[in-house]
């Protein structure tokens, strides 16, 4: 079976008084069924435009958007509406109907699809149970917290029994604790319902928390894509590097001396690498930043080191790290 989403030469140009700007510029990627696919980029990189092209809320200027074997821009309006019912979407600002109860919000997509009210309500309650909000069924959105609103939005998406879920900065308006719980819920939905999820975010931590694959968007262009581990250990492009280092923001202030970022995975975490290197070359080095992250259930470590000023020793140390199969990157150009 082919990929569930396939984007070919996608381009979206906006006209403004200042001329044309390409928000999305010749982007290609494909997403396999059951993946949690992250699209990361700084604000203004074109992520939101890109994800809105996936359900044609934004009509591409050119290029193809395949959902299964259907190219969305080719569909008639009626066919497009039918296909959209299989592509759920959640938003940064939740976009719930404020004048409807929580239960009726979840009923909404089923109403649109023409389901009987009684049946819809019964199913809606089930989905509210799934997201842990059945006791709020009679409340109105204004009475809920941000995290609860997003849960209602997720229940509403589930109600249309989608194959794909698009998340447009779905956790950006939430605090870290709530973000974690929403991401956990998304992961659960991915596993229990087999829904393919596309996550748009500017936060590396969100990608690391739930995504299996990631694409880096930079000024409308796809800088690189691949597995989240590969991006974490060996980012190939400047754009990716910037996003990863943003995760530890204090690094910005560390430039000057020769800095390297080393990454550990799995078994290499058990070797006392730093101790070994100091003993071996009899020169101290400075640990500026260290962190362990959980990426898809595996512990992945990263460390920013300041190497000795003696160039020869520093080179040997880098060589040693490489032999130990650590990810090594020189950070001199970070500013």
């Amino acid at each position, binding site marked *: 079976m082919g990929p569930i989403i396939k984007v070919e030469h996608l381009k979206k140009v906006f006209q403004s008084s200042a001329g044309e700007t390409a928000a999305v510029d010749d982007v290609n990627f494909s997403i396999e069924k059951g993946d949690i696919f992250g699209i990361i980029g700084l604000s203004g990189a074109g992520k939101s435009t890109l994800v809105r092209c996936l359900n044609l*809320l934004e009509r591409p200027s050119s290029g193809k958007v395949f959902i299964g074997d259907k190219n969305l821009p080719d569909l008639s309006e009626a066919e497009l509406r039918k296909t959209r019912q299989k592509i759920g979407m959640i938003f940064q600002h939740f976009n719930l109907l404020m004048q409807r109860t929580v239960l009726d919000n979840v009923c909404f997509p089923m109403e649109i699809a023409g389901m009987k009210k009684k049946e819809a309500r019964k199913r809606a309650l089930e989905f509210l149970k799934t997201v842990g909000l059945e006791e709020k069924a009679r409340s109105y959105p204004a009475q809920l917290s941000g995290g609860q609103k997003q849960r209602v939005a997720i229940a509403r998406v589930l109600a249309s029994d989608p194959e794909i879920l698009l998340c447009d900065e779905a956790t950006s308006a939430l605090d870290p604790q709530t973000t974690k719980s929403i991401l956990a819920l998304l992961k659960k939905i991915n596993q229990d319902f087999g829904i393919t999820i596309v996550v748009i975010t500017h936060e590396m931590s969100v990608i690391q928390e739930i995504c299996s694959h990631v694409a880096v968007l930079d000024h409308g262009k796809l800088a690189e894509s691949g597995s989240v581990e590969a991006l974490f250990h060996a980012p190939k492009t400047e754009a990716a590097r910037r996003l990863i280092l943003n995760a530890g923001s204090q690094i910005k202030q560390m430039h000057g001396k020769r800095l390297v970022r080393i990454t550990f995975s799995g078994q290499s975490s058990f070797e006392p690498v730093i101790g070994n290197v100091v003993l071996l070359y009899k020169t101290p080095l400075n640990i500026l930043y260290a962190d362990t992250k959980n990426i898809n259930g595996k512990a992945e470590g990263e460390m920013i080191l300041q190497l000795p000023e003696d160039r020869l020793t520093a080179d040997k140390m880098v060589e040693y790290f490489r032999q130990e199969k650590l990810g090594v990157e020189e950070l001199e150009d970070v500013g």
Partner: protein
Amino acid sequence: MWDNEMITMLVDGTVDTLYMTLMSTLFGYILGLPMGILLAVTDKEGIRPNAFLYKILDFIANLVRSIPFLILLILVIPITKAIVGKSYGPSATVVPLVIAAAPFIARMVESSLKEVDRGVIEAAMSMGANTTSIIWKVLLAEARTSLLVGVTIAIGTILGYSAMAGVVGGGGLGDIAIRYGYYRYQTDVMLVTIVILVLLVQLLQGLGMMLSKRLDKRRA
């Protein structure tokens, strides 16, 4: 002055005023609501942009609103005669009132619907909702508070206009005020009609606001 005849006249005048106001509001919305929906939907930021249709409706709305009501009242007499059969009395006044109110109502409906959060409309689109569903279930439902405030304003405005119809024998409290207060110098009768008009406006305004507040679920 407080003989039975006077009281009967004032009661009849109040009933006539209410009749004109409520009938005109009703028919004003029958014409103005679809027009307002069309204006909101066909606007370039709307869910079905259509520059041509929008321009036409926009022009009609501005055209009618730029004619002073007193002049409109006289201008449409032939239409009034064709519809009601005569050009005076409360029923006849309803015709110019509707013609004047409909575009004004359409504008208020348009602006109420444009207040609906763009994100919520997009969410409905992303679920595959068609234009009709979005109009009924999203635009009108989400804007209901603002729409009801609009109804309240429309009733108040139409009530004021209906008093003006007294000049051409339109009936109602305005008619009484002009006949007794202006032509016969009976200031006391005029003052009583004014008090009744003020009370009516206050009552309807209060009722409308209470209803719209009760129906608003946006506050926790």
